[in-house]
């Protein structure tokens, strides 16, 4: 009995060893290296001198870093919950359709998700072009004159958020649709027999049963949007980047453009801590909601 348990332990150890090795080598080790780098003044290439907590002191006085943290948080607020809500709404509507028409509408909503970000950027940059963009025929009359959306600081984050929702929504819609199809038809039939209203059906049947999918969508979106980079980088190129900075972009700028690997690592450590804090917070909130 004892011997076989030892054997089992050995087999288990052998089986997980490749994973532990690769995980330790490819993920844990570089992460530790990054933390170590954050205490040095290393450039992009090669080692640097140990400077203790100087990078962290600089971080707290860094105005652009503060802007980056705020913009990232703002972006998460603008995209995660609104994006998921929009996806749920569209999925509910699409699920009422049938046959090839449903497939057609679904693929129309899914199409943007297939595009690479560079194409998304070019499409929207053309649409919103100040001199020639077709969207200026709408913006012009409302604002009194054509506006450059990407150079009007208060418009920047909401603009990027709308495009991001447009771009990534297809995936969430797909998840919701799969969730909706898993709800047994009998429940709806029973509700109909009992004379439940549409709103009651949604709040008492659909919403509770779709909740696990909602949690999944929110989690995926949160992780994705905290790492926002491409869209913001592309739309702010050459402009007032210090005002529209987000965290990953700041890491990129410090490491690759300003050649300070040590400080970039410090910003990365800060992002790491913030992501953990967000995740724990979200896990707790969703757990409370799920337990009810």
């Amino acid at each position, binding site marked *: 009995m004892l011997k076989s348990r030892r054997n089992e332990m050995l087999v288990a150890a052998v089986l997980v060893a490749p994973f532990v090795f690769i995980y330790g080598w490819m993920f844990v080790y570089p992460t530790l290296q990054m933390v170590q780098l954050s205490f040095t003044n290393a450039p992009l290439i090669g080692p640097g001198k140990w400077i203790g907590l100087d990078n962290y002191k600089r971080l707290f006085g860094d105005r652009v870093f503060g802007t980056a943290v705020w913009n990232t948080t703002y972006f998460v607020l603008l995209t995660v919950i609104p994006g998921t809500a929009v996806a749920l709404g569209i999925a509910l509507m699409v699920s009422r359709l049938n046959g090839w028409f449903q497939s057609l509408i679904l693929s129309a909503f899914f199409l943007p998700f297939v595009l690479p970000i560079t194409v998304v950027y070019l499409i929207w940059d053309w649409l919103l072009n100040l001199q*020639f963009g077709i969207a200026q025929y709408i913006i012009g009359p409302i604002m009194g004159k054509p506006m450059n959306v990407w150079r009007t600081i208060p418009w920047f984050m909401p603009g990027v958020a709308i495009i991001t929702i447009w771009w990534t929504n297809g995936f969430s819609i797909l998840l919701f649709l799969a969730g909706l199809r898993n709800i047994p038809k009998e429940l709806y039939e029973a509700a109909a027999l009992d004379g439940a209203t549409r709103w009651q059906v949604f709040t008492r049947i659909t919403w509770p049963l779709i909740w696990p999918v909602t949690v999944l969508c929110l989690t995926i979106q949160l992780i994705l949007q905290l790492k926002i980079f491409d869209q913001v980088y592309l739309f702010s190129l*050459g*402009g007032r980047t210090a005002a529209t900075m987000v965290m990953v972009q700041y890491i990129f700028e410090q490491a690759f453009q*300003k*050649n300070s690997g040590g400080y970039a690592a410090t910003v990365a450590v800060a992002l790491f801590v913030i992501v953990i804090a967000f995740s724990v917070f979200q896990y707790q909130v969703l757990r409370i909601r799920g337990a009810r």
Partner: protein
Amino acid sequence: MIRNFMRAALLSTALLGAAGGALAQETVVWWDFLGGGDGIRMKKLIEDFNAEHSGKIEIQATTLDWGVPFYTKVQTSAAVGEGPDVMTYHASRLPLGVSQGSIAEITPDDWAAMGLSKDTFAEATWDAVNVDGKVYAVPFDTHPIVLYYNKDKLDAAGLIGADGLPAGLDGIDNFKAAMKKLQDGGTKWGISQVTADGSFAFRTIYSYLCQQDGSIGIDGAWLADDNQDKLAKAVQVIADWVKEGYNPSYTDYPSTVALFTSGESAFMINGVWEVPTMADLQAQGKLFNWGAIELPVMFNHPCTYEDSHAFAIPANAGKTPTPEKHAAVLEVIKWMSDHSLFWATAGHIPANKAVTETAEYKAMQPQASYAKLTANGVFDPKSKNAGVASPLFDAAGNAFTAAINNEVDAPTAVAEMKAALDGLQ
């Protein structure tokens, strides 16, 4: 029998190998960042080179993304010994590469082998490839910004002089008066200068700073003395154009070109690399008569921003090129320099003075009319924080984008820029 056969096979393989070695052609791995109209012309030059050196040297070229991605890639790949054999490099970005030890020096022996020297190039261009007393690249061209003009519209407004070139544009007020005349004649915009991208507008503003004998300075002494005031005055020139309705606000690069080529603006300030765009459109009969000249003098004396595309040899860590490979690389650089007349069709001014002095070049228009400005050229400050796609450009993007569109007044923007530069490590 079988053993004999094997022996024969081995012997013939060995012979083939030896023969192959004797005839081996050197492969030169080449990286560049030339993606536009000039990239097409560079591909033609590379094809010609390969055809002429068939069996001896072959260039294997890859075009990468311009700017930060390119310089990040060449630095990191050189650090691990995976860089190319030769690469294009902006002279203004050499200080960064040198500070990281990712570029090899072009030694006096190399220069002798190529038959090129200091006297081959204009003074400012030669100076730009020198860092701390050593030479790190071979200049291929100089590419300043120029003033493009719509000749038909200028003619109608009486702004073309007896020599067939624009006249009366010097001075802030004169230039505005000229734009006013053009706009009164029905042109929508006097000028299209990029206003959505302050780091692009840096080129114009830096020229106006130099026209006042000002300078950006270097690390540790950015914008010292009265340079802050001079820079603010330079910024104000464009801010006033925008405020007074001569130049559209918040307009991006492609739009400025479109405004000019569609005749909606009479002038455009842009790099010489847009010459192929105009030449190609005109060849298709889709463009008015046009020209390009040195930037008009707004302040004390002529001065224009320029940079140089140069060839640099990466210092690949742990990988010294064989003498044969090195000789092949030098041959490539030398051949390109000798054949840079064709490169001039891309708008760039060949760095090799022997090429710009040929009759063929002098007959080339508008290239020949702006080529003289290399005598008044100014390069970026020599710092690892300056040059194309550098922290300095970034600081300019932040400060100037707001200032030239009159969202922040020029002195405040310049003060913020100085603070950003002083904060660089």
